[in-house]
């Protein structure tokens, strides 16, 4: 029997450092920002001379300087993930604004409408689809090529999924014409379905296909909205299939902070989905242990075991909402529990979601602990 070896990776986003945010937004870069760049450069073994020289200007960066700053931010992201010991990396999405905005601003057919509240004094920008949407460039090509050329590790490229693009957009195109006022659920659903499939085929797919053509062999479709409307999970499946149809690539889906029971039995309709990367630790106990009662956050794994869908589970073992550093032993027990339910061959290891709300210090410590815990789990399973 071959030895168990779990693949470790992050989900996508890391926080953007002040020097990256301010320089691109046109705000003055301060001495403390430059110090931060220098400190992390030393820690990650990156030559900071050129970057700190550019940042020293403080303001009014040229386009060329901004491009160099973006490159350096991406390099810091890659190195941070590499140094923490991950097997699979990307650039912490350092070039992207926000996952929804990044997708729709590169597509024809969307117009920004303004700001709405997410919660409290937190807001996000929403766009409306105003005509059949279309992406006619591989807009993430430069981003991907930079990562590919700057790491020896496996690369997994994250994309915002079509269902989420549809669900988070206003609809001024598909809902126009016949009024939906007092209409049947079927009529309303039809419009959302057409929008979702168009977003899959003509918004997400062209960019993804271009990246695969450039050499990417593993992509991750992010669908945070996947279970927002449980009755539409079949549409999530349909848009996933439409996105990857005919493209030869390892394809994962990331879904977080959701009621996963809504996924059954619909995930059985996923075409060639390598894995579901899911969040669990957010709802789990912080105590060690591998019994059912010790791991309440992972109870849903039983449903995956019973399901005919037999892909891998990207096991979220790190909570991205707190600064608590999960001890390696806790990570180990979460993995061992999941391996006991599904078998170790179906498990890969990741954070619950992107770490962009955590500082780099916290993110790094969490990832290091995640890798250490993974090694402990392997030792336990391999009997060494």
């Amino acid at each position, binding site marked *: 029997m071959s030895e168990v070896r779990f693949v470790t990776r992050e989900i996508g986003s890391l926080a953007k450092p002040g020097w990256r945010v301010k320089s691109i937004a046109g705000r003055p870069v301060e001495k403390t920002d430059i110090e931060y760049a220098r400190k992390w450069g030393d820690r990650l073994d990156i030559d900071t001379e050129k970057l700190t020289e550019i940042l020293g200007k403080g303001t009014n960066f040229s386009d060329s300087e901004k491009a160099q700053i973006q490159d350096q931010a991406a390099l810091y992201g890659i190195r941070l993930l590499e140094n923490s010991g991950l097997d699979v990396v990307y650039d912490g999405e350092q070039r992207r604004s926000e996952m929804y905005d990044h997708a729709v601003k590169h597509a024809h057919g969307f117009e920004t409408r*303004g700001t709405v509240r997410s919660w409290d004094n937190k807001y996000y920008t929403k766009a409306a689809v105003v005509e059949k949407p279309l992406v006619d460039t591989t807009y993430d090509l430069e981003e991907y090529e930079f990562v590919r050329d700057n790491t020896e590790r496996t690369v997994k490229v994250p994309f915002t999924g079509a269902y989420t693009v549809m669900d*988070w957009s206003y609809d*001024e195109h598909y809902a126009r014409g016949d*009024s*939906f006022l*007092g209409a049947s659920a079927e009529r309303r659903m039809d419009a959302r379905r057409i929008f979702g499939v168009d977003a899959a085929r003509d918004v997400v797919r062209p960019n993804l296909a271009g990246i695969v053509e450039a050499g990417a062999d593993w992509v991750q479709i992010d669908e945070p909205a996947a279970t927002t409307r449980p009755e539409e999970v079949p549409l999530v499946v349909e848009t996933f299939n439409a996105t990857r149809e005919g493209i030869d690539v390892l394809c994962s889906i990331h879904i977080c902070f959701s009621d996963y029971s809504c996924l059954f039995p619909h995930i059985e309709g996923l075409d060639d989905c390598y894995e579901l990367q899911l969040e669990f630790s957010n709802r789990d106990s912080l105590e060690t242990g591998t019994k059912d009662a010790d791991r309440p956050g992972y109870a849903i794994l039983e449903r995956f075991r019973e399901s005919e869908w037999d892909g891998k589970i990207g096991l979220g073992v790190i909570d991205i909402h707190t600064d608590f550093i999960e001890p390696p032993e806790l990570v180990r027990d979460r993995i061992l529990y999941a391996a006991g339910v599904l078998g170790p061959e179906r498990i890969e290891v990741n954070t619950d979601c992107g770490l962009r709300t955590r500082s780099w210090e916290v993110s790094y410590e969490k990832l290091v602990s995640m890798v250490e815990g993974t090694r402990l789990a392997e030792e336990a399973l391999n009997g060494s």
Partner: protein
Amino acid sequence: MREIKAYVPGIYARSEALVRATRDLDRGRTTQETVAEREATDLHDFLEVQREASLDYFSDGLLNWQDIFRPLDEAAEGLRPGPLTRFLNTNTFFRAPAVEAETPKLAEPLGEPFFRIGDLPRGRWAATLPSPHALAHFSAGELSSQAVAETVIGPQIRWLVGNGCAMVILQEAALFSGERDVFGLGEALDALESPVPLAIQLPFGDAGEVLGELVELDVEAIGVDFYATDVAALPRPFPKTLLAGVIDARNSLLEEPEEIAEFGRQLLEELEGELHLVPNGDLQFVPEKIAREKVRRLGEAARILKKEQ
């Protein structure tokens, strides 16, 4: 002749300027006073839009409410803001009321600045509160709807009425799941002892399955989202006042007043009570400039229908 009214319950959209001010407050770049000044400007603008649209009741837009439960969670002994929770199937979240005592109690009813009674015309304004059933249902902990009605929402309603409120809309988002407790809602409504008409509004969801039970409750008006509810599901004749959610607060697409009026004509044929035109939920789900235009169009639709009566 049937009475037709139009108004805008719930949390209204914050202007881009107020968004900036509140963001700056969180980042320590501005003061609470500056935010309060900006809120006052937003309130003035919102009241002006309602006046121009000739709405029948005014609303203050709850501009400083972080969510529909929050000020009550913070004011009531035995409650506090709890975990962040998704509001229905939207991308907006609220703090679920966390329960610290079996019977929470409003220490003092909420006044200014949570209800801007100084800016609202006495006897011509409507207030929005969470339904006691929704507050209990969404709480993190064990809480009875009746206790919430008796010791939190009821005292608040009586204070509002004493300060010129003409109508109270209870936002009820907890009737869409299989666990709904219409009987419990009915008991809670009785316990409110409201001196003014009460409306139960079901925002952003299909009310079709529950309308038959709701019309049996002792409540003057029921609010239905007609962008999520098939009009065929409306019990006929409809024995109550209907708050018809005819403005889609979840989409930026602007409604045509004549289209709303045509839909209103169909509804009038089925109604025994009054027809009140409202958005299908809080207008905070669209940016303020769009919300403003939707309010104007709501008023225009009501004007068309009133002329025909």
